[in-house]
């Protein structure tokens, strides 16, 4: 219940954090909301030599409109996102995903940046960020780069994040007024992480689905956009039948995970059910 010893460093700004990261090297860990890192440290599954606390960096906590994008600071908590009226108007699936995470106390502390960096295969965020075609801004002492969400998630607890990089911002293109989105989740009953989380965002014109984005989390070791489902619906006028047909294609191209809460077979089935539910919700 008590972590191993480590050096505690408080970063007051992004710059300070980046300096500390460069200074302390690979043995240092960023601490944001602490709701993934501290549980692991308490069980001594993770024992960093130094902890760089970025939770007090106010400049990393914001939700705002910036031109054609909505941008979210990395240290914005799930709870603040869940309550954002701006996001709820423009990209509802983001707010819905935030509200599905853990419980109220977890949402009050856990941050979007922390969740992305941690890359738990059952985390909620990836689905809606993939479907929303988000970009992730990474900073290091040598500069800043922007990665598309699809390229960011690389595998089980693995991302494109470099050792001395900090996630600073998540950028989401603002969809047009004809786009609707949702996030639906079948939760693991004990931890309430996602067994299947499905985000769908659909832009319609003249009754047909112009652009369909469907992404999953929890299903496979890496969250993914499901192009088979997307393509099955794109250009179609939605009907019960073609929604059903599109949903049937869910999770065909990935290695589906299995555990004692949901076997491969069942998870695959749930992916289809939740794909259909998401599509129905968006298209109804």
């Amino acid at each position, binding site marked *: *219940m*008590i*972590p*191993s*010893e*480590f*050096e*505690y460093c*408080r970063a007051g700004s992004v710059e300070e954090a980046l300096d500390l990261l460069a200074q302390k090297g690979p043995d240092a860990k960023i*601490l944001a909301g*602490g*709701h993934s890192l*501290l*549980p692991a440290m*308490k*069980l001594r599954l993770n024992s960093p030599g130094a*902890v760089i*606390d970025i*939770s*007090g960096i106010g400049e990393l906590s914001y939700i705002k409109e910036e031109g054609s994008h909505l941008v979210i600071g990395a240290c914005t908590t799930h*709870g603040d996102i869940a309550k954002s009226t701006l996001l709820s108007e423009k990209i509802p699936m983001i707010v819905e995903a935030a509200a599905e995470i*853990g*419980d*109220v*106390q*977890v949402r*009050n*502390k856990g941050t979007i940046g922390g969740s992305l960096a941690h890359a738990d295969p059952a985390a909620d965020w990836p689905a809606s960020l993939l479907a929303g075609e988000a970009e992730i801004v990474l900073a290091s002492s040598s500069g800043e780069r922007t990665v598309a969400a699809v390229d960011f998630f690389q595998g089980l607890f693995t991302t494109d994040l470099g050792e001395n990089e900090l996630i600073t911002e998540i950028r989401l293109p603002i969809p047009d007024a004809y786009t609707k989105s949702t996030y639906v989740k079948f939760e693991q009953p004990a*931890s*309430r992480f996602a067994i299947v989380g499905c985000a769908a965002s659909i832009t319609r014109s003249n009754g047909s689905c112009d652009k369909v984005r469907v992404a999953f989390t929890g299903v496979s070791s890496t969250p993914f956009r499901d192009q088979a489902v997307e393509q099955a619906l794109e250009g179609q006028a939605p009907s019960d039948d073609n929604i059903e047909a599109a949903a049937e294609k869910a999770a065909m191209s990935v290695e589906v995970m299995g555990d004692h809460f949901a076997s491969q077979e069942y998870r695959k089935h749930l992916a289809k059910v939740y794909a259909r539910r998401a599509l129905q919700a968006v298209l109804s």
Partner: protein
Amino acid sequence: MGVPISVTVNGQHRESEVDSRTLLVQFIREELRLTGTHVGCDTSSCGACTIIMDGKAVKSCTVLAASANGSDITTIEGLAQNGELHPLQEGFKEEHGLQCGFCTPGMIMTAVQLLEDNPQPSEAEIRHGLEGNYCRCTGYHNIVKAIYHASRKYKEVSHG
């Protein structure tokens, strides 16, 4: 390694030096000897350690004491004012919302934020708001009633 911190706990200003690895719940229980905040798990699941930190319900087992620097904290001990029980404490007593009392402080602190956000919650909203708190004794039935009871009291207060 000592990390200097300064916090306000139940209205009292505290300066201290904590070990970098000291958890906020340890600081509260062991250093401040406010043992009403409990530890029921090691996976941040049970909510027995819930406190209000800067206006929000937080699991104090999953915060470093060092990170709490500068924050304003309320624990169960700080809820009653001038010997007068808080409406939630009153509600738990009236509706028998506690049995062994171990989960109770965390339940109440979570409910403080719940009613702050939503002063007139429905039964379903109350149940959903308790997602991060376990109780093994009550089956939650009377906890839900207790929070509902308190919400009516809030209403009376705010509407005169």
